[in-house]
């Protein structure tokens, strides 16, 4: 089999999407940690357009953007499929992936650097959007993928682990069991899946990372927030 390498950044949930997909399909790969404050020649060569991680390099060919990488992985290694076989079901999964991208991103960008009363307002907006996901995508299922995790679970994975650290940094919780009971249950179920449990960044380090990041964003509030070096797709 041709060599598989993954360029990543340890706190990035987008990088972990790719790690989980590769591990779920039992694909061997080399992980290369990028220092985003000092981008390697490898990163600049393999993702010259966006200069972001994750980048998957398979047999010397580079693929960037986490969602594009996930679709590539699904096609190249069809074992343990992450998307439904039925085209309509597949389209629904992709719809919810797009929903997360389109609807959640601006709300998240308002929530994470929010201060004072803004935090409650942003948390409420977040809850409204997550309620739609809970009702219409998750429903009564254990996972978004049904009985086992699929691509939608992987893409929403940020909510299951990274988000707790962000909530603690902001100081206002969003995924309250009384307001989002099924999503709250999903968070716990998702973290228990062995591939996920065994592939998560260190909680303490992640919390410190987000606290520092939030401080930077809050103090830079008079100008635009610092763009992220890991992709937000």
């Amino acid at each position, binding site marked *: 089999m041709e060599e598989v390498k993954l360029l990543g950044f340890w706190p990035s949930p987008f990088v972990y999407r790719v790690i989980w997909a590769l591990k779920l399909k039992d694909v061997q790969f080399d992980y290369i940690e990028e220092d985003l404050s000092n981008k390697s020649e490898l990163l600049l060569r393999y993702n010259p357009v966006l200069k972001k991680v994750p980048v998957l390099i398979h047999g010397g060919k580079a693929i960037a*953007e986490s969602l*594009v990488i996930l679709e*590539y992985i699904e096609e*190249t290694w069809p074992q343990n499929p992450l998307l439904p076989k039925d085209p309509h079901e597949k*389209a629904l999964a992709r*719809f919810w992936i*797009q929903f997360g991208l389109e609807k959640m991103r601006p709300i998240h960008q308002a929530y994470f650097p929010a201060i004072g009363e803004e935090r409650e307002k942003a948390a409420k907006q977040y809850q409204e959007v997550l309620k*739609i996901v809970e009702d219409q995508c998750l429903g009564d299922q254990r996972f978004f993928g049904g009985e086992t995790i699929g691509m939608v679970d992987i893409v929403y994975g940020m909510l299951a682990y990274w988000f707790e650290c962000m909530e603690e940094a902001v100081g206002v919780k969003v995924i309250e069991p009384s307001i989002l009971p099924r999503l709250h249950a999903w968070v716990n179920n998702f973290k228990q899946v062995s591939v996920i449990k065994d592939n998560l960044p260190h909680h303490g380090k992640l919390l410190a990372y987000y606290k520092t990041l939030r401080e930077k964003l809050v103090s830079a509030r008079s100008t635009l927030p610092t763009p992220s070096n890991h992709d937000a797709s």
Partner: protein
Amino acid sequence: MAGKESVIVHGMWASPYSKRVELAFKVKGIPYEYVEEDFKNKTPELLKYNPVHKKIPVLVHNGKPIAESLVILEYIEEVWKDCPQLLPNDPYEKAQVRFWVDFINQKFTDIMMTIIKTKGEVQEKALSQVHELIKVLDEGIKIFFPDGNPTFEVKNLGLLDIIASTVFCSFSATEEVIGAKIIDPEKTPLLYSWVKALGEHPLVMEIIIPHEKLVSILGPWRQSFINPPPSQS
């Protein structure tokens, strides 16, 4: 598939997103029924079939709805196989197409809105940003045109051509209305030639709003933002 298929597209004449879906069906030679939606008076079917966003385009295939233009295009490609393909077979080449489709789909909408709705310094800044994006795109699409020949014919439209047509073919009207170039034939000759060839393709000409009509719409629309009448706030 037994019996007659039902293929219905809910769209809106001015929306580039619903044009994409129509163009994809035309490229594949699949007949479809079209329902024109009025945003102020949405049909009950639209509200039923896209309860999450209540937006067009929505494809209803044998009674099953699919929303989000890119999700719809991937669905069309999967379901209708015995006709021209929109994506390459090779997973890596497919990933390259999806990367640039994503780039075009995400990067230009907001910035073009700013350019049309503003003037002076704000518009200057947005123009300079879009010129950067155009340069990156011109460089990026070289992989799809290895001969680099600026005069070529776009024979069989693929997914990238469809997205590019519905995003870029309207730029010449915007250029006329704002009095500035966005895609410069001298600075970015490959992208310019490609967009020009797309605009002259018979199927694209069937769906895009003709230049003069678009100018007559964009002109007053731009004026409503930069010189709002005194009665409006």
